[in-house]
């Protein structure tokens, strides 16, 4: 798992200060990988659940670029869902 060589555009501290994401242009867009993930500011290669990686990416986007909360990054969500 290699270290990211891209220049970070922002460092995002989540609600829990132990969790930080160093975002890159690649990360903005909903993709956070282990390469852009840090714990407590210390770069820590760690294998994350892909579902968690995507969640970190979405929330980082919200914090950095103020994404529309009702617009899902992959376009797969209708906020109202009822199958009846």
């Amino acid at each position: 798992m290699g270290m990211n060589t891209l220049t970070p555009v922002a460092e995002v501290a989540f609600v829990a200060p132990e969790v930080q994401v160093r975002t890159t242009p690649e990360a903005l867009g909903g993709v956070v990988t282990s390469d852009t993930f840090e714990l407590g500011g210390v770069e820590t290669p760690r294998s994350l659940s892909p579902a968690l990686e995507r969640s970190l990416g979405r929330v980082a986007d919200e914090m950095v670029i103020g994404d529309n909360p009702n617009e899902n990054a992959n376009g797969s969500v209708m906020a109202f869902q009822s199958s009846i």
Partner: protein
Amino acid sequence: MTGEAFQQEAVVDAPLIPFDEIVVKTNTLCDKMPRYDRDGVFVGGCDYVPVAEAEITNKHGCYEYENNMWRSQPPRMSDEVVLKGAQRLGEHAGAHSLQDMRVIRHGGEPLLDSAEQVDWFSTTVRTGITTQSPDTNVHMGIQTNGLALAKEGKDGDKLAVLKQHNYQVGLSLDGDREAQDRHRTGPRGESDYDKVVYAAKLLRDSGVTWGILCVIDTDNDPVATVKSLASHEPGSISLLLPHANHSVLPQPGAMSYGDWQIAAFDWYYDQPAESRIAMPIFDSYMDVLLGGLSKHEGVANRKTQELFMLANGYYQRVDTIKSTEPGAVATGMSIFEHSMDDVARSDPGIIARRLGNAGLAKECLECPLLKPCSGGYYPHRFKSGKHRIKITDPVEVFADAFRHPTIYCDDQLKLIPHMASRMEDDLGIHRGTLVEALAGV
């Protein structure tokens, strides 16, 4: 003035929150409407209704929620209503400079309309919005049982129109054959599982964005259910709790709803990166646990931005509130007389739902899961009072009726900490960190 009343007044005076997701009930009828024999015994069709109610009344399905409002609706939305509705959408989008507006065809079954009618509706709505609000991105969605798509096949005109207008399609499918046939048979009780699966194949092969909406039945194995749904390769899978509340209790089953959802979540959480399937409800919970925003109407204390337009041109609150009482869902306001701003500003049910923490029960406000749960899904918080809710009741009456923890509270208390624990283990932080951090915000 009480503290609550003061907060409510403050909400009324607060900047208006626009509606950016409009669900349009284009069709009142459905090809899976419940049917009964001469003795009134249920024969077949879609039978989703809280089981206690069904056993007492032998009434099945969304058509038989006690308000039965569909009986007062025309079979389909007229052109006049579509044209006026489109004008109202554009007016609202323009007034609030909306970046995005989502318009969802719903029913009944919205694909009972012909391809030409769906095409005309889509063009009319998009034009109505963008003429008055050129910078608004219009997203079209539809929720279908898939039978009309299966009937036409791969070269069908309806599928082509959905693709042409870039529709996001929701398909109702509850799992494997046994699961689907529990509640969603054809009108004579026959299985139509193969037709729905064929519709899923058509959607997958067509390249449209689509997902599956599944109502949980805990008699179905959770992992087998999500595996079966995933085998159709949808873009997303949403697992929905059946509608129930403190006055109409949930159906008991083989396991608790909390344990069922935990098993499904674990399956999702452990999927490899190659899996392209999203589970939006779980995603929203994870986002909220990380301090982000809920993207799903049913997750956390999201102030509702959804509004319904009925086939007769009346505005309605979110349809799932039908599962409570008739007066809880109707607004009494029409597109011919009222703007969407009028609804946002003056409808007591909408205002009550946007109260934030002031709309939550005392035990919810004191709960460590206040932020990620926020009382659970709004219709599931309902408890009947001494009198049935009337359209003309003030905000306080609506607020009081829904100021209860979700009837699925025990399940939420299992599910959310489990999700948080999985994430905390993955992140290498102490268990409890995420929930504790949220509580401190």
